[in-house]
């Protein structure tokens, strides 16, 4: 723990990442108390202030119905982070189990499971999510389903490659000799050795999930209004360029900042946990 902190603290970039992530997570958690206009996350209209640039009252300007963009970005972080957590919380276990079974058991299990993974991986990730969203109705839950559907194979593949190399290791062979059951070996012996790689990937993936989810909503396939969402804010605002630039630029930067934070932190973690690319 102390060693980990030393490595992260010793690298200004990782430290920045940690700072950014902490800041954004905190901001999302306390959004209702720190947002200047806490009710602007919903269906509120205030046409007297519609479509104004940044002012002392509205730091990031207001949108077309007069809602405070800064407040909406804070709330949008709640949605983005929540979606990221849910997707990873579902995709990681599924992918891990599939990868472990395929990697450790080998044989037909390996062939069938990994071919299924190959099929999912042979459709470019965003395209798969778009196709799934295309036939479902655009809601937060469906967006989670679509992103999860494209995400789990990557974990399956990661865990599979580790598990496959680990199954020839001495400790696994030893466990087999003393007659440990398959599931015990897979989950108690091999899984812990996959954890560093999984945790690192999850940190980096938080950023990528945010990117994919915002891409879906940019195409109108994500969270629906009046719920604030960074991707749809950029998409909506892009219609009003170049005159009302604040509608697009601030939500765009908000995405950049959050993903940048997770990437910096993930890079740092990779060093701490000694995970290869």
């Amino acid at each position, binding site marked *: 723990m102390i060693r980990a902190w030393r490595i992260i603290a010793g690298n200004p970039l990782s430290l920045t990442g940690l700072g950014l992530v902490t800041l954004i997570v905190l901001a999302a958690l306390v959004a209702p108390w720190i947002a200047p206009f806490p009710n602007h996350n919903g269906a509120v209209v205030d*046409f007297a202030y519609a*479509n104004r640039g940044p002012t002392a009252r509205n730091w990031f300007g207001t949108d077309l119905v007069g809602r405070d963009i800064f407040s909406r970005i804070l709330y949008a972080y709640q949605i983005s982070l929540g979606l990221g957590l849910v997707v990873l919380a579902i995709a990681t276990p599924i992918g891990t189990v599939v990868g472990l079974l395929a990697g450790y058991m080998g044989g037909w299990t390996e062939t069938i499971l990994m071919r299924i993974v190959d099929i999912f991986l042979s459709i470019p990730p965003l395209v798969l999510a778009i196709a799934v969203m295309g036939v479902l109705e655009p809601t937060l839950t469906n967006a989670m389903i679509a992103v999860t559907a494209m995400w789990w194979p990557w974990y399956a593949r990661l865990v599979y490659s580790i598990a496959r190399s680990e199954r020839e290791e001495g400790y696994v062979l030893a466990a087999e000799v003393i007659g440990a059951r398959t599931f015990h070996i897979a989950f108690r012996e091999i899984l812990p050795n996959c954890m560093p790689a999984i945790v690192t990937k999850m940190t980096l993936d938080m950023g990528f999930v945010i990117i994919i989810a915002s891409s879906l909503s940019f195409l109108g396939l994500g969270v629906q209004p009046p719920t604030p969402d960074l991707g749809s804010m950029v998409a909506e605002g892009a219609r009003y360029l170049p005159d009302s630039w604040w509608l697009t630029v601030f939500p765009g930067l908000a995405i950049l900042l959050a993903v940048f934070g997770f990437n910096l932190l993930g890079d740092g973690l990779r060093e701490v946990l000694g995970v290869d690319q």
Partner: protein
Amino acid sequence: MIKTKGVFAAALVAATALTAPALAQSVLRLDEVAVGELDPAKASDYADSILMFNVYDTLLLPRQGGPGHVPHLASGWDVDGVNFTFTLREDVTFQSGNPMTAADVVYSLERMQALGQGLSYLFGGVSAEALDEMTVRFTLEEPYAPFVSSLVRLPIVDMALIEANATEDDPWAEAFLSANGAGTGAYTVTAHNPQSETVMALNESYFLPIGEAAPDEVRLRYGLEAATVRTLIAQGEHDIASQWLPPEVIGALAEDGAQLLTESGTGAFYVKLNTARAPLDDVNCRRALAHAFDYGTALQMIEIADGVSQGSPATGAIPVGMFGANGPEMVMTRDMDAARAAMEACPYPAADWNLEISWIAEVPIEERFALLMQANFAELGISSTIETLPWALFTERVTTPEGTPHISQIFFNAVTGDPDTLLYGMYHSSVPGTWQSPEYLNDPMVDAALEAGRTGATEAERSEAYAALNALLLEIAPTIYGYDRQSVFAASDRVSVPALSDPAMAFGLDGMGFTFRLMEMADG
């Protein structure tokens, strides 16, 4: 013989082009959000109408600057009860060179009815017969007063050309007509790419004289983003923007010096209430919403610049200017006291409503109206959710009353300029569950008034029927009448469009202002 003439004409054009290279081609560039459907039998929306009115002609045209119709492909007509007899002009040829005859008119009607798409519903119960080469008679199964005005939606197609391109699998040559023109119109289709544009060229052998300044080439572009159109116009690379630009963008263009063209008088913004589902199956609950809607703010939202707006105050179901409409002084206003009073009489407690407010994904301004309504109705304690529906999904959802959202937002105009085509499809109990009629209204008195309107023998009789209908609709509130719509188009100074800028030249029919042959391009 005809063929030889065509080749000769082409050679002549080529020779002219060679000897007079200094004469630059004038190009008109405009855009629409939806892809234009070239097949005239399937035309229904604005982009389709623009193509149809230019590539094809109709027997008659709306009179410019006033009510009534003038002959176009026809030289005149007689009405005798349910029989309408048209005499055709003798000097009209199709773009292929084939002469136009009565057989083409009959074929055009039959093709439209057989395909059953677009606006073919206007021609149910109509049959046509060629009395001789140049005379055609339409017979109606039952009296229908606005039939003559429906004929502005019957484009005449080239029977010989279509039959030459028909196959066994495709007897009406739908594949051919979805990418090519087969009309008599002033513009021929030279290229059609559904992802980017339809390109049209001036038809040199059009049967009417065309002004020198009319555009030689027209590019109708599809699906451009508002920001793109904004920049293209500012950089002089686009001429007329679609009406679907948000008001802010039109305003910004006007500030940069763009002219604003307008078209009005036949359409409105309708907030449709599903009368087949609780709580909106109760008249008092509906009235509460109609009183609570903030008409003033809605109008403020669509204001573009001083004196120019995408709408004017509504006075009822029929837009001001169309017959049967209320006077311009009887504007709809917000009345919270009346709304609360109506809520008292509404049997469903406000807290249990959970209204679904839908908006059409392709029309961004509707999202703002959805938010406005959510805020307005919340003042009565009504909770609601907003739902985005792409157009294709919306038209599917409205086919059942259970699937239809409580609230749908529709921009609709009378496709022939007659109130019958505005209201019959919306409210008659025989046609529920289309995108025009998500109200699912089933009211015998409304039905009776609609029938009186379409069968009325005289203009005065019809006008009276529609005035009565208008009053009745305001009483039972199946719809919130948001505002009377005015289409506003930002345009560069390169083009002048009298039909969209001079009321005395206006057609009173949506889309017909885009008759390219009547436009004038400045040099350059």
